[in-house]
């Protein structure tokens, strides 16, 4: 017995000694840290509109900020948004670093970082990779950390569209962040770099200081979710999008009068952050380098491919679980949603048909059951080009047949307008091969389907949007909405006025999607959204996109009312600040094509 006790003691001593090296590899950051507000205090409380001093904006960043109306924060869709990762450490409250210890190994697995009025952000320390570019974005993003000398270096990707400061200074969802946390005794220095190819001319650096606090707690509100949302803007129509048209705001003059700062400096810009600018101010020789004002060329995003469609290897199908029984396949020309279960496989859309074998192989990774249904969101070849092959690879179950024996091929269902569209002659041939046509077309505004123990709704939101036969597919138990091309994260909305499309129809459809989706607390997650193209999203992403489309609609409408011709509208560049995110100079849907379509649509009497 004595031998056993001694053995255990010696084993413990030995273990402690051998593990000492790894324990020493970290400097403890855990605790509550109170911010010191000896820098930029007015920027961190309630700050003035149009004050973008010190921000290395490009022209797009400034324009986006300039059109921002703070009433937008009071919209039901935005009331519960917490401070985004790009701002959460800059806010006014105490922050908290908390260790997350693996209960089995006892090793540090992660830090939980609770920012000022933000949500806890997990910083993974276990070497895991960043998620796929297809994965959803969150307010906190996805963070991994590693020690470099005396500093914890944290890389963050997958951040939602957010802000640098609380007066509309924007960040895009292509922004990535790198933070350096260094402890000097009881002081903490956080150096933050934000790299946003859409709105910044160069990575934005700022340093934020904290002192170890033994007497305060990280600040947080209670829960904020749909139940807590109230009507803060009484009388404003549902789905309104507050914003300022280019010549309808006087915030700059108000700020200049208040601060005495030169107008050129208030706009921000890379050149304004270097000492030469102060010299030019003194000499009165302000001339701006227009290169600082243009959206800059995209720089490689190193940490992970956040830019979903641009970074995926060509000819590869990527599979990502979305929620419940629903997955998404990307890379087949357009996103394909897959529902699996005991009944078999249900697909929403079938891709372009160019990679049918790989699509089938990807489906087989998820289920060995037959494909029973293909639901088409609309009549475009990149969404239904795989219909024929994928349908033949499956079989219909029961239905209206006299027996329950499998029928040949999967049932293909779409709105009846899709049938009319694909059957229209294009020369001597129909618009699409007969084998790719839906086998069933539903009339009216909706259709119900039950598959794999789950109710599905097909909703035809309006008669003219992306096309005249769009369907939204809502998986009610998995809580996933598949939008087709009514919502994409890769381009401006596509619509062909001559073939039944309409910009206002797209906006109405986006609002319909927002009506269907219900977020979890903090306006994140909840109902998940699979767009026609691009990454998986949630309601907040649809709101951001809806706002963008609505703002552009309002601007183009405004310019038309001023009597401008199409060429004049194009010259005014109403889409300017969004071009770095959604625009294109070449390809099937350029920025010019979008503006032309919008002009034509909105000019109709």
């Amino acid at each position, binding site marked *: 017995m004595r031998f056993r006790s001694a053995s255990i003691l010696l084993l413990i*001593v030995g273990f402690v000694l051998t593990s000492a090296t790894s324990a020493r590899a970290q400097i403890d950051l855990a605790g509550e840290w109170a911010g010191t*507000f000896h*820098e930029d205090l007015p920027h961190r409380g309630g700050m003035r509109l149009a004050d973008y*001093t*010190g921000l290395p904006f490009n022209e797009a960043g400034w324009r986006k900020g300039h059109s921002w109306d703070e009433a937008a924060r009071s919209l039901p869709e935005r009331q519960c948004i917490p401070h985004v990762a790009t701002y959460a450490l800059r806010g006014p409250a105490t922050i908290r670093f908390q260790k997350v210890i693996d209960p089995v190994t006892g090793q540090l697995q992660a830090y939980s970082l609770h920012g000022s009025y933000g949500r806890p952000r997990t910083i993974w320390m276990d070497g895991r990779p960043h998620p796929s570019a297809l994965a959803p974005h969150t307010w906190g993003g996805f963070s991994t950390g590693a020690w470099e000398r005396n500093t914890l270096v944290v890389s963050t990707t997958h951040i939602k569209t957010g802000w640098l400061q609380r007066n509309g200074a924007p960040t895009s969802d292509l922004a990535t962040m790198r933070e350096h946390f260094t402890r000097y005794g009881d002081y903490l220095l956080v150096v933050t770099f934000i790299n946003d190819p859409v709105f910044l001319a160069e990575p934005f650096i700022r*340093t934020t200081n904290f002192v170890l606090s033994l007497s305060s707690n990280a600040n947080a509100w209670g829960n904020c979710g749909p139940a807590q949302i109230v009507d803060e803007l009484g009388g404003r129509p549902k789905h309104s999008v507050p914003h300022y048209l280019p010549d309808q705001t006087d915030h700059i003059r108000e700020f200049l009068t208040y601060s005495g700062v030169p107008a050129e400096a208030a706009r921000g810009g890379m050149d304004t952050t270097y000492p030469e600018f102060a010299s030019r101010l003194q000499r009165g020789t302000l001339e701006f380098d227009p290169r600082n004002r243009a959206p800059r060329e995209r720089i490689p995003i190193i940490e992970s491919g956040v830019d979903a469609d641009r970074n995926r290897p060509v000819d590869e199908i990527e599979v990502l679980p979305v929620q419940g029984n629903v997955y998404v396949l990307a890379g087949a020309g357009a996103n394909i949603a897959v529902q699996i279960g005991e009944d078999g496989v249900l697909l929403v859309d079938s891709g372009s048909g160019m990679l049918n074998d790989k699509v089938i192989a990807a489906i087989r990774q998820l289920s060995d059951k037959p494909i029973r249904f293909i639901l088409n969101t609309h009549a475009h070849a990149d969404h239904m080009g795989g219909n024929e092959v994928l349908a033949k690879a499956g079989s219909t179950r029961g239905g209206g047949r006299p027996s329950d024996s499998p029928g040949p091929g999967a049932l293909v269902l779409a709105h009846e307008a899709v049938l009319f569209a694909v059957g229209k002659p294009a020369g001597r041939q129909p618009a699409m091969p007969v084998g790719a046509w839906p086998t069933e077309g539903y009339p009216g505004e909706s259709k119900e389907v039950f598959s794999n123990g789950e109710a599905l709704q097909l909703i035809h939101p309006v008669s003219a949007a992306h096309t005249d036969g769009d369907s939204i597919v809502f998986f009610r138990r998995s809580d996933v909405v598949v939008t087709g091309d009514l919502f994409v994260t890769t381009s401006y909305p596509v619509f062909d006025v001559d073939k039944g499309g309409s910009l206002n129809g797209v906006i109405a459809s986006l609002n319909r999607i927002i009506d269907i989706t219900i977020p979890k607390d903090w306006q994140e997650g909840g109902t998940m959204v699979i767009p026609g193209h691009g990454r998986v999203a949630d309601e907040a992403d649809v709101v951001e996109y809806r706002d963008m489309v609505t703002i552009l609609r309002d601007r183009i409408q405004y310019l038309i009312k001023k009597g401008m011709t199409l060429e004049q509208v194009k010259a005014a560049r109403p889409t300017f600040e969004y071009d770095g995110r959604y625009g294109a100079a070449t390809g099937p849907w350029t920025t010019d094509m979008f503006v032309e379509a919008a002009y034509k649509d909105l000019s109709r009497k």
Partner: protein
Amino acid sequence: MRCLLLAAWLAITSMATAAQQPLPKVPPTPRAAAPFDLTGHWVSVVTEDWRWRMVTPRKGDYSSVPLSAEGRRIADTWDPARSAEDGCKPYGAAAIMRVPGRLRITWDNDTTLRIDTDAGQQTRLLHFDKRQSPAGRTWQGYSAAEWDLVTARGGLGVSLATAPPRMGALRVITTNLRAGFLRKNGVPYSEEAVVTEYFDRLSAYGTDWLTVFTIVEDPRYLSQQFITSTHFKREPDAAKWMPTPCERGSVTDGAQ
């Protein structure tokens, strides 16, 4: 019994391994001991406090500075019409890192790191050799420097401290200052001010950066520590060096 032998072997081996780790060699000079290279050309990138650094703020605008009542009283006596007479007051060690400009950092000798600024044409000497003693008061005062070591606290004693301590930042404590301005609009610090700084280096998005974490303590004009942090981007050479004296006909009163 077998278990006891195994445990004893493990413990002894661990202790022996720990004991055999070579003691860290003491570098011959602070210059040789530098855990990172601070030398070179650096430019301040003013993304914070722009309104209080790039232009002279209005009189009475001491936003963010925790001034005491006496400090505010002094700040309110500043006369913008006579700002040309302020000379080098805004370029003292408590404020010089916040002044937009460029730094040139070199080793003056093996125990002295030298920082030259083009704004105000000031020179700071950071002394690692503690045998030197400060003389009179100057704008840049007397700066005592050391490499900050991060050592293990507590635990089981020597068995946990066999590896060399990790090198941290460069810590500098500056005293013997002449009274000056924290900001160009007369926000004051007194001769009693003590400045503690941590100089560090990092890289991100392909660029080298220098950070300076600064704590100013002034029992006369501040109600609490005044804490700021300032960042500088590395430049390849001195091509953009723009020396500008802070006093007409007087480059600097020299640092000790």
